[in-house]
């Protein structure tokens, strides 16, 4: 029983971070329709950002969130303006071709980031050690401080995003574009601007998630590949473009992963997840949470 509760809890705690970077991906996909194959590597970049800030300036990842967030926004803007936008600009390109182009281009970005990190930091795992290292014990269940704090940060960041989407004018413009981009354009919402903003906000959330994840998860340059698939699993489960769904599905994905790790085999934790993913794709491609229509 204790094991079960312990597993559930650690699944939910790590799932909050999955939820955060997946809501970044779903924001990007729901609005720009760009499949960002470099998404996992943006998580890794956030993690290395935390490691770097801690190692050079002694900055705790909790404060490091802010520079990492700013850096992620800028990076997101650059990637959008230089790479993604290009695919919309070719004369006579069909929508499908543009999508495939984005796929391979973001894949190129992924190769670039992963190997740039390999060059800079080497292949061995790095992590931020000695920050938030307390462990609480409540009724036989252990909760590490870093996991708890990370989860709270993820929750706060997600709620901020939610409020921004629901209450601000930009948020409304973004939701309008998700619902019907042609209509949104007709009432004066510049799609290009909305794309750029949502792309960089998506990357920002991802960077923040990576930054706090670094407090307990060791990072290597190739960690990104598994985060990428986790993000896709989560996004599809939550329903593409559904931000709330993505966050909730993130928790579920965290639990599935931890359950497989504890009850089946640690080395199979991702396999269980990916198989669940294929099953969800086949049986409920519209997502397991909510109805068919995507909403922010």
């Amino acid at each position: 029983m204790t094991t079960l509760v312990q597993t559930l809890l650690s699944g939910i705690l790590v799932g909050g971070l999955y939820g955060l970077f997946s809501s970044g991906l779903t924001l990007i996909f729901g609005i720009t329709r760009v499949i960002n194959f470099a998404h996992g590597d943006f998580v890794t970049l956030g993690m290395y950002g935390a490691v770097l800030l801690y190692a050079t300036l002694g900055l705790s990842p909790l404060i490091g969130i802010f520079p990492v967030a700013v850096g992620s926004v800028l990076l997101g803007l650059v990637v959008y303006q230089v790479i993604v936008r290009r695919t919309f600009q070719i004369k006579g390109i069909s929508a499908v071709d543009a999508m495939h182009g984005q796929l391979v281009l973001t894949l190129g970005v992924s190769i670039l980031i992963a190997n740039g990190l390999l060059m800079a930091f080497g292949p061995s795992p790095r992590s931020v050690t000695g920050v938030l290292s307390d462990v609480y014990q409540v009724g036989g269940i252990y909760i590490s401080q870093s996991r708890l704090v990370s989860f709270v940060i993820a929750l706060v960041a997600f709620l901020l995003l939610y409020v921004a989407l629901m209450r601000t004018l930009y948020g409304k413009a973004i939701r309008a574009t998700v619902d019907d981009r042609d209509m949104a354009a007709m009432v004066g919402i510049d799609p290009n601007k909305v794309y750029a903003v949502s792309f960089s906000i998506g990357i920002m959330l991802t960077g923040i998630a990576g930054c706090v994840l670094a407090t307990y998860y060791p990072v290597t340059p190739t960690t990104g590949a598994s985060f990428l698939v986790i993000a896709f699993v989560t996004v599809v489960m939550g329903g593409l473009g559904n931000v709330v769904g993505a966050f909730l599905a993130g928790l579920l994905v965290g639990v599935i992963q931890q359950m497989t790790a504890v009850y089946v085999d640690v080395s199979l934790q991702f396999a269980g997840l990916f198989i669940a993913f294929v099953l969800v794709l086949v049986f409920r491609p519209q997502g397991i949470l909510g109805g068919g229509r995507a909403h922010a």
Partner: protein
Amino acid sequence: MSTFNARRAVDLARTTPIFGTAVLIVVASLPLWFIQTRFILSVATLTLIFMAASLGWNIISGFGGQISFGHSIFFGVGAYTTVLLQTNYGVNAWLGVVVGALLAVAVGLFLGWVTLGLRGIYFALATFASTLVFAILTGHFDEFTGGEVGLTVPLLGDDPANFSFANRLWYYYIALILAALAFLVCHLVLRSRLGLQLRAIQADQDAARACGVMAFRVKLTGLALSAVIAALAGAVYIQYVGFIDPHSAFGAAVATQIAVIAFVGGAGRLWGPVLGAVLLVPLQQLLNSGLAAYPSGFNLVVYGVVILVILLMDPRGIMSMPWARWWWRMRRRRPEHGPGRDLPSAPSDRAEASAVSGPGGQS
């Protein structure tokens, strides 16, 4: 590539045999005048192997438009089957190659049965997740597969009956035959009913079904054909390199490599994977050895930049770039085309598509 374009296929089909044979003769003669060192030989062999795998990918993903990021599954199944049969059961390596191809078809049919109902990006994601599952499972069940450590092909010396040659040139010619066969299959598919149906599905699946194309069955056939070629490439790869591990068989790097080669050359174009492989594989090998003095990762950074630059020039790949279109026009040499064919204001693909029903379309 997405524009359904019967005219272009017909035109190319006419000149491809001559042009293809010429290329084949040149490539076959390379060892006589160009391949002087072991390194060049190895690069050329790997180029041909990946060219074959990518040509196979092109059938379902290029012609059929079902983008797969899981062809490494077939590549890996082909590779693992032959070496596992060889080491565990003492089966002849050539027979293992055939068994590997058949097994890949079985895997492809099952995978296709599960995932081919998915549209567009969902299929790509499902295949990508599947190949990672294969990688994890192969690493996990290590008593059978050798686990993360990988497997080594037994050293047999010069034993042609068992796919083992002392003279490395043999592998080059085997890879060449494989690539040529893959190209021939692609060429025939493109001309056949199957190719036409695949391309119709690629252009608009609903419209194709309305015209009586059994979309699911056609896609399944395409995937199976595609799997055979990728599996054969994997089998030749392992016999040539002599070593395989889960990452180099099923990993994300191989999965994307096969697709990226085709995308860079031009997915859905007959010559796309050929061009892509000739460009990217030697580039990668040269960077691997040439930049060995730099921190590891630099070679792939350069590789990534090259891919980005090419695709930023045209996201549809090299075959869609202006010079390639010029090259086509030269090869086609069809004077009966009306002057209205290449309207400067209209996108060229559309213009050619409309020419099918135009007065110049009676070919």
